[in-house]
């Protein structure tokens, strides 16, 4: 039992349960209502799972990037690129020879995501550009590239198969959920049953030591940013399938903050080191629950953004040792007694 509470996933999980309960109470039980229509489940919780899976997928990739002490803020633009490519192919605007084959379109979009990630990896691992700057280049340029692919238009498509990526159901549950679960399982296999996870953590804590301990720092960074690109592309596909087209201006706009927020709430230090993908997924669900609830109450979405930014700052402050010491000092000064030192 004691072991359970010490797990990194424990705290965020409690927070998630608490938030869901609070939301449930405030909404007077509506929140938990799940109805079955034509064999599909409907309800607020299902919505959260469906919409939250995008964040969960992103957060899974972002966690590792932040784990190395880096970051990837280009995810939103990569989403836009992936959406633009997939929709343009399905629409037959580019690569008309494929006759709008959805499967190939998805594959090419994912490949494009990987390519974007590889570019980030090249800048960060090879050229040693700060991850922030490197991914910022793709953040701004990427949206431009997406616009150029879509020729500055909003591409709308009609393809049942493509819609299903977001709106479809398997066993009565939304498809994006299964994609998210699949991604998370794959990432867990990668980080837990190989030594990749611990190597990423070592790089995040101390790249110099890691190199001398025989860890291929550069190669691992490449892999991580490519994975980040692929997850972003996946999220982009889900989003564009959701709106039945590619809107390069708004697809994934400012989503990088949600990704970082999910990871930070999950408890991974933004300075690198220990990370937990499950924690971040829980973090993503927390973010989605908050958003959905606020939205349901009719609060302007703009305020959500402000609130999210404030939460990130607060989480950062809580993670900051210097801040905690200062707070402690003030508290000691007020109470006039010493607290037990943290072990």
């Amino acid at each position, binding site marked *: 039992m004691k072991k359970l509470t010490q797990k990194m996933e424990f705290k965020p999980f409690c927070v998630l349960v608490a938030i869901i309960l609070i939301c449930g109470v405030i909404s007077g039980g509506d929140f938990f209502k799940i109805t079955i229509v034509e064999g599909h489940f409907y309800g607020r919780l299902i919505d959260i799972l469906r919409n939250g899976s995008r964040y969960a997928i992103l957060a899974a990739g972002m966690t590792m990037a932040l784990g190395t002490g880096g970051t990837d803020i280009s995810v939103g633009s990569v989403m836009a690129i992936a959406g633009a490519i997939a929709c343009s192919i399905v629409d037959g605007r580019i690569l008309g020879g494929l006759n709008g084959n959805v499967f190939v379109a998805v594959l090419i979009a994912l490949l494009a995501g990987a390519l974007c990630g590889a570019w980030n990896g090249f800048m960060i691992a090879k050229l040693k550009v700060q991850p922030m700057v490197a991914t910022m280049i793709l953040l701004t340029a990427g949206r431009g590239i997406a616009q150029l692919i879509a020729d500055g238009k909003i591409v709308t498509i009609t393809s049942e198969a493509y819609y299903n990526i977001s709106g479809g159901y398997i066993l009565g549950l939304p498809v994006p959920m299964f994609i998210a679960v699949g991604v998370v399982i794959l990432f867990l296999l990668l980080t837990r*049953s*190989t*030594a*990749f996870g*611990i*190597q990423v*953590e*070592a790089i995040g*804590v*101390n790249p*110099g*030591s*890691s*190199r*001398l*301990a*025989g*860890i*291929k720092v550069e190669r691992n960074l490449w892999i991580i940013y490519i994975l980040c690109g692929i997850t972003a592309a996946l999220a982009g596909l889900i989003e564009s399938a959701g709106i039945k087209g590619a809107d390069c201006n708004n697809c994934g706009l400012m989503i990088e903050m949600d990704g970082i927020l999910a990871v930070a709430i999950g408890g991974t230090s933004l300075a690198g*080191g*220990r990370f937990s993908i499950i924690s971040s997924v829980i973090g993503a669900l927390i973010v989605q629950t908050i958003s959905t609830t606020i939205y349901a109450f009719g609060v302007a979405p703009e305020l959500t953004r402000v609130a999210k930014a404030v939460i990130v700052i607060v989480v950062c402050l809580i993670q900051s040792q210097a801040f905690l010491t200062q707070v402690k000092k003030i508290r000691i000064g007020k109470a006039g007694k010493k607290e037990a030192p943290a072990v």
Partner: protein
Amino acid sequence: MENTILRMEHIYKEYPGVKALNDVAFSLRAGEIHALLGENGAGKSTLIKVLTGVESKNAGTIEMDGKEISPKRPVDAQNAGISTVYQEVNLCPDLSVAENVFIGRELRKGMRIDWKRIHEKTRELLKDFGLSINVEERLDNYSVAVQQMIAIARAVDVKAKVLILDEPTSSLSAQEVKRLFDIMRMLRERGMGIIFVTHFLDQVYEVSDRITVLRNGTYIGTYDADKLPMIELVGKMIGKDYESLEAIPKLSGDRENVEELLRIENGTTGAITDISLSIGRGEVTGFSGLLGSGRSETARLIFGADRMTSGRTVMEGKEESIRNPLDAILHDIAFCPEDRKKEGIVGDLTIRENIVIALQSKRGVLHKISRKEADEIAERLIKELAIKTPSADQKIKNLSGGNQQKVLLARWLATDPKLLILDEPTRGIDVGAKAEIQKIVVELAKKGMSCVFISSELEEMERCCSKMFVLRNKKIVGELYGEEISQSAIMRLIAGEENV
């Protein structure tokens, strides 16, 4: 009480797990050169750091001119009249020479900095030091020795009453050292009090008036230099510990009958050129030389930490290509780097993870070491090396320096290496741990493992090594075997007097 300007009393400083300073006292008169001596880890640097406000003391008083001061930042110490030249040059490489001398107390003309006068002043000032260089040039276009002189020039020019020189001579040539001593004497005439930290004992006798000795964080005593023979001084620095260390049985160095394990031919990296050497099986090979002599760079070359741009590595008779640390690990080479914090430990990970991390790299990322096996390895090595920790789950950054070093040793022993390279493994750790590490090294060599041992402490090198390469100016200038290895022989080679 004759014109004492600085008095430190009952100074205590504790780091997690180490008592760095334990009731230390120190006083400095105006117009004297006062040497502060002690072995590595004796507490010299800590005392300096406390005095200059880089670290804060746990207890004790510091008085300047009879007034108590408690510097919290370097700037406080400077304002109190204490000026410092640190061992590693602490200047800004991107700024110009003149600026490095004057930044923080610029000459002004009205509101603006008067660059013209600063340049002139710097030129004059550096002339005193025998340097005629372009003061408008970026600092990092000059050698470390020149940078060191510039750092001293900066410190001297501040209207300081106390000047601290922390190992100022470690990267200077004999001629430059002489010039530095002239300057020190000149400053003494002007009434400045100088604290001189060094481990070159003959230099101490050349310029110092008084000597204070620290050992293992405690104050041993203050003596007049001309009344303390060198042999007695060494005794005071090393103390009783000397006997406990003496117990290490020495390996017999043998010039002929040693099987070669590894050979470097004309190895060149960005830092050193054309190094050739051979390391025998079951030997403890020392790399001796001053800071910056190329001893660490040579070790890094062998391990592939710095990439070899040309040259050959031959291991057990076969030519091997070692381009990066992983290659080296796969070839059974292990390396404990000099900078334990930056390149050794992975602070936030546990001891267990730190121990198996290199073995994991050796096995490959896909073959994860199971938790059970990792536990076994960690338990075994913690016991074998007597690492003091409540459990293998502790974060390594919470251990003391000595225990961290042992964990690093454990990390490499877990990979079962044929060649173990240790760069300053005993720096900054307490004497007990030091002796243990030395003992471990010699015992490993007896079991057939080859070791490369690097240390600034000649006495330690003399004790452990069966073969020694001496380096000066990035070149190997001498090889010593077995009985030939003595401190004086090494020192002669370092000083460049092979023919004496």
